[in-house]
């Protein structure tokens, strides 16, 4: 009887103890969960506060940015007008078209004559003489007007003073060392890599005269 009573009391106490322990354990866990949820709630409130700044701020930036973007072309236009007014804009001299020199050189090429070509022509020694005659003869009346009068050296070349038309023998006129190519509008100075190979279609006294006439150095020498 006593044993039964004791065991019964033990069973009841054990049940109560187990319930109490588990209730305390679950209580602790739920309390911790509540704290974490409270922290999460604070974080959400902060995020909402931060997010409220995004809409109006971005709208403000967008509005101001559009005004800036539309104003920049106006500033550019002003700057362009000022630069156009301030920049020196010298009038370039009109370049006379050297009709005689151009036609002469083309005529030389047409008949196969090259001033530096010393090879005999098919007609024997008379080829050079014919080419000289062709080179010296004015092709048209207009050409005759632009050509210098016959003489040892023309007083003014196809590009005015400081230029010289090619000689009949293809040689270099005295005082005109610069070779000019009228097809490419390039000039070559003595000693440059292209000078020996270049066929002069006009001679210049100096690089300055050549540039005044509209000629340029080859791109590799600029």
């Amino acid at each position, binding site marked *: 009887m006593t044993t039964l009573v004791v065991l019964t009391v033990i069973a009841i106490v054990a049940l109560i103890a187990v319930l109490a322990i588990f209730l305390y354990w679950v209580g602790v*866990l739920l309390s911790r969960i509540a704290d974490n949820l409270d922290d999460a709630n604070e974080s959400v409130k902060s995020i909402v506060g931060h997010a409220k700044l995004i809409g109006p701020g971005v709208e403000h930036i967008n509005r101001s940015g559009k005004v800036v973007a539309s104003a920049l072309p106006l500033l550019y236009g002003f700057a362009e007008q000022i630069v156009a007014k301030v920049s020196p804009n010298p009038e370039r001299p009109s370049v006379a078209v050297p009709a005689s020199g151009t036609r002469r050189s083309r005529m030389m090429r047409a008949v196969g004559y090259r001033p530096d070509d010393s090879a005999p022509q098919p007609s024997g020694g008379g080829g050079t003489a014919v080419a000289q005659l062709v080179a010296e003869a004015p092709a048209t009346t207009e050409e005759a007007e632009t050509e210098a009068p016959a003489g040892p050296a023309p007083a003014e070349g196809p590009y005015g003073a400081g230029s010289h038309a090619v000689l009949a023998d293809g040689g270099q006129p005295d005082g005109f060392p610069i070779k000019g190519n009228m097809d490419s509008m390039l000039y070559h100075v003595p000693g440059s890599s292209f000078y020996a190979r270049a066929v002069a279609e006009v001679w210049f006294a100096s690089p300055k005269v050549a540039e005044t006439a509209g000629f340029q150095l080859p791109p590799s020498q600029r």
Partner: protein
Amino acid sequence: MVDGLPAAEVSLWWMTLGIGFLVVLVVILLLSFLVAFVKIIDREVVKVRDTLRTITGNTANTTLIPQTAGGVDAVLAEGLQHHLFLGRVVGKV
């Protein structure tokens, strides 16, 4: 008879005591499940809390947006000054 109780009652008492201990074990098992589930909830809540803290750190930079808007306004004001200056100068050059 055992200690003045009939043998049938004593047997019934023992059986009741056995069932009582069995109930205690079942209660322990069920409460263990409950604690396990609450622990899972606790872990997930901690993850949510950490994620929200990270998001809060990122969104804290949105306070720069009004400052940026002020900077853009300053650029606009400066551009307006340039516009006025160039408008005055362009006719005098």
